[in-house]
């Protein structure tokens, strides 16, 4: 019994992740819904690296803390979509405030820092009320 207790291991050699978003903020400019049905925000750059992950998968996800809010007025966050490159490992998607959405997925190590680009778009509509809306997107990289 004692042998078993002494054998409790330290954590296995953990994966090392280096992950960052180059920009701290982006904005969708006002536009005429008839001529600009989809508003594109400036490109977001994702930098990532993972080591010690020879046999594991890795995943980059994004989730919004809430809808786009201006006081008590909201634009549903599902009206925000994105395209991303390179594909793979990056993939397009639709923003959610309830479920982490996959931005990129891969397997094994990414031994040198790589970059991907994500371009968010907001579906434009005459139904939006006047205001300055905001939300916070949280990107997460996990392995395995």
């Amino acid at each position: 019994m004692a042998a078993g207790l002494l054998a409790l291991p330290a954590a296995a050699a953990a994966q090392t992740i280096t992950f960052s978003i180059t920009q701290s903020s982006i904005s969708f400019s006002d536009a005429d819904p008839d001529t600009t049905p989809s508003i594109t925000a400036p490109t977001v750059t994702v930098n990532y690296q993972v080591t010690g992950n020879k046999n594991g998968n890795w995943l980059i996800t994004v989730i919004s803390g809430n809808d786009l809010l201006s006081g008590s007025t909201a634009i549903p966050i599902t009206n925000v979509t994105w395209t991303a490159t390179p594909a793979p490992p990056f993939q397009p998607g639709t923003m959610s405030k309830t479920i982490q959405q996959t931005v990129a997925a891969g397997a094994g190590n990414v031994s040198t820092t790589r970059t991907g680009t994500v371009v968010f778009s907001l579906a434009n509509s005459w139904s939006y009320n006047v205001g300055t809306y905001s939300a916070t997107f949280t990107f997460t990289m996990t392995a395995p």
Partner: protein
Amino acid sequence: MRSRLRRAALIAATAAVSFAPLLLAASRTDTLSVSATIAARAKLTLSSGSMAFADADPDTTPVVSPGGGALTIMAKGRTTVGSTVTLVVLASGDLQSGLDAIPIEQLSWAATGTGFVAGTLSHTAAQTVGTWANSGAWTGTQSYQLANSWTYSTGTYTTTLTYTLTAP
């Protein structure tokens, strides 16, 4: 003997569990602030820039409709929440043919479409064509009618109607 074997098996089992690698998921996060600006704007589209009422016998045609039929109106507006988008029309004057005039109040309209209302033209006060709460896009029709009368002098009468869409 059986007790020793059971104890050894327990140790072995414990050891086996203990040596299983303790896999910890590595995770890193970063955040992005997102903003969107929605400004006030209004856009109005009329299906036609003119309409004409043909001559008719006042006895058989007491009300004359324009040849082109109903005017289709597309109104779009962005406003602050709780505000009202308003569409009004104002005539520049009576229907005029030289010195002769047909009072503009002889022109009235029926309306279809959400928020659109019927009315009578005026050249002194803008008349409401439609009102809508909050932002949106609305389509409706105005069917103008000219009250016909034997009292009208012969002539070709004209006036100009100005539509104004306001999204405060």
